[in-house]
C-alpha cells in the first residue's frame, strides 16, 4: 500500500516532556493501526519549541523563515496530523495557538486530525473539547471523535492496564481509518489566478 505522511506537532516545552511522550504514544499507535489497515506511514515530529522564535517572527513579519516554511509545508501536505499541547491556564499553550495562527488558512481543510493534551490533573480533561476542537473545526479539519487527555496520574501504573492505553488505541484507530478514507488534495496556491479578467470586470 501507499505511504501516508503523518505529522506530529508537540507543543511541550520541557525536556523530557510528557506532552512529547503522549505524542509519541499516539504516533506509534496510529502507525500500527495503519499497518493493520495495510498502509505504511512516514512520521515526522515537529517540536514547536524548536520553532518558537520563527513562529514569533512570522507573526511579526507575515512570512515564515525557511525552516518554519518547511515545517508548515509538512503540515499542509500531511495525510494525518496528531496535535498535542500542554494545558496552560486552563487552555492550549500560547505557542501551540501561535503555530496554528501561522498555518495557512486552507492548509488543514479536510486533514484528519487527532487531538491530544497533557495536564496536571484530570480536572482539565474537557479542555480539548471546549478549547482545541473548535479551532480545528474552524480550520476545516476532520477531527477524530476521540481525543486523548493525559493527566500526570495517567502515566502511572501498568502501561497495558491503565485506561489511557485503551483511549490512545481507540483514538489512533479512528485517525488511521480517516487517513485511509481521505484523499488529500493539494492546498490551493495563493498566487494562482482563479478568475478571468472579464469575470472580475463583471463583478462576478
Amino acid at each position, binding site marked *: 500500500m501507499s505511504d501516508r505522511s503523518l505529522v506530529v506537532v508537540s507543543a511541550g516545552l520541557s525536556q523530557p516532556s510528557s506532552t512529547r511522550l503522549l505524542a509519541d504514544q499516539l504516533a506509534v499507535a496510529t502507525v500500527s493501526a495503519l499497518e493493520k489497515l495495510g498502509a505504511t506511514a512516514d512520521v515526522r515530529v515537529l517540536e514547536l519549541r524548536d520553532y518558537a522564535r520563527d513562529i*514569533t*517572527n512570522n*507573526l*511579526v*513579519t*507575515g*512570512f515564515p*523563515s*525557511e525552516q518554519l516554511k518547511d515545517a508548515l509545508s509538512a503540515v499542509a501536505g500531511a495525510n494525518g496530523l496528531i496535535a498535542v499541547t500542554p494545558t496552560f491556564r486552563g487552555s492550549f499553550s500560547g505557542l501551540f495557538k501561535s503555530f496554528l495562527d501561522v498555518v495557512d488558512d486552507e492548509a488543514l481543510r479536510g486533514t484528519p486530525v487527532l487531538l491530544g493534551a497533557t495536564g496536571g490533573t484530570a480536572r482539565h480533561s474537557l479542555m480539548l473539547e471546549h478549547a482545541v476542537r473548535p479551532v480545528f473545526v474552524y480550520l476545516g479539519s476532520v477531527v477524530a471523535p476521540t481525543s486523548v487527555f493525559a493527566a500526570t496520574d495517567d502515566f502511572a501504573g501498568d502501561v497495558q492496564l491503565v485506561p489511557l492505553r485503551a483511549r490512545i488505541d481507540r483514538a489512533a484507530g479512528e485517525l488511521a481509518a480517516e487517513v485511509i478514507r481521505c484523499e488529500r488534495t493539494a492546498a490551493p496556491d*495563493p*498566487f*494562482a*489566478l*482563479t*478568475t478571468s*479578467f472579464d469575470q*472580475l*470586470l463583471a*463583478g462576478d
Partner: protein
Amino acid sequence: MQFGIFSVGDVTEDPTTGTTISEHDRIKAMVAIALKAEEVGLDVFAMGEHHNPPFVPSSPTTTLGFIAARTQKLLLSTSTTLITTNDPVKIAEDYAMLQHLADGRVDLMMGRGNTGPVYPWFGQDIRNGIQLAIEHYALLHRLWREDVVDWQGKLRTPLQSFTSTPRPLDGVPPFVWHGSIRSPEIAEQAAYYGDGFFANHIFWPKEHTQRMVGLYRQRFEHYGHGSADQAIVGLGGQVFMRKNSQDAVREFRPYFDNAPVYGHGPSLEEFTAQTPLTVGSPQQVIDRTLGFRDYAGDYQRQLFLMDHAGLPLKVVLEQLDLLGEEVVPVLRKEFDSLRPAHVPEAPTHASLLAAREANAAEQVEAVAAGADGAHE
C-alpha cells in the same frame, strides 16, 4: 532604466534619541528629500497616500504639485494612489491637473491600501476591495481616454455625458503602474491594460515577487501587449549604506529593531537574508540590486525606500548622496548593458506622446496607401 525613491511618510520616533518630529517637519522633510532626489540625479520620487496616523501624506497631489514647482526633471509618482477608496472621477481630475502643472512629469501607481478601517472613512466597504480596484480603474481608464463618458457600474453612482477636466496633457493619460504584494488579480489587471506592474518587493521573500512578476509577464503577453520580457516591471528596494559596511549595520540596527513594520521580530541579519533589505556598503547595494534581475527579469523601474523608521532627515539626505553618487550611476550602466534591445524603457509622457504621433502618422500613411490602391 529609472531609479528613484518611494516614501511612506511615517512619523516614527527616532529610537536613538527618543524624539519624534512634528507632522509639519515630516511634511517639509518629504519635500527636502524629493528635492535632494533630483539634485543627486535620481529619476523618480513617489509618495504614499495614507489617512491615519502615524502617516502624514493624505494629499499627494498637493505635495507633488509643490515639488513639481521646485524641480525641473524629477518624475513625480505615487506609492500608492488608493484606487479603492478614492473616487475615480477625482483621481482623473487631480492627476490630469498635476500633469499639466508638471509638464507631463507625472505617473501613478494604483494600490488597494493596507488598512481595512480606511474604507468606511471614504464611504466604501472593504468587502468590495478587489472589486473596487477593478471597477474604479476601469472608469478612470475611460475618463482619461474619452472626452464624454456615459458609465454605469455597481459601486458608484452612474455618469451621464460627463467630461473630467482638465483633459490629460496633450491628450496623453499619465502612465499607470499597479502595485501589489500578493494579489494575483492585480497582476492580471495590470496585464489586461498593458500597464506597468510594481512589486512592493520589500518586507517579503523574493519568491512572492518572482511569482507575481512571472504571472504579470505571462498575462501581459497573453493580452497581446508584447512579449513577456517586454512587460513593464518596477521593484521596490530598501537599503542603508555607509562606506564601511560595519558602520552601516551598527548605525541602522536600532532603527531596524524598532521599525514599525518588522521591528521586535527577526534580527537584522535574518531579515536581510530573507528579504531584499540591504544594509552595508554601496558596493553591496549594487551587487544585491543587480541580483533582482535574476528573478524579476529585465525591469524598468527601481524605487528605494530610504526615509522611514525615524531616520533623521540629515541621515536620509546623506543616504541619497551615496545612492545618487555611488550606486545609481553603476546600476544604470550595468542594467543598461545587460538589457536586450527589444526590452523597452518605462513609458514617459514624452515617449507616449511620440508613440501616439508615430501611430497617427502610420494610420495616415495606411489611409493614403489605401486611397492610392483604389485608383489603380
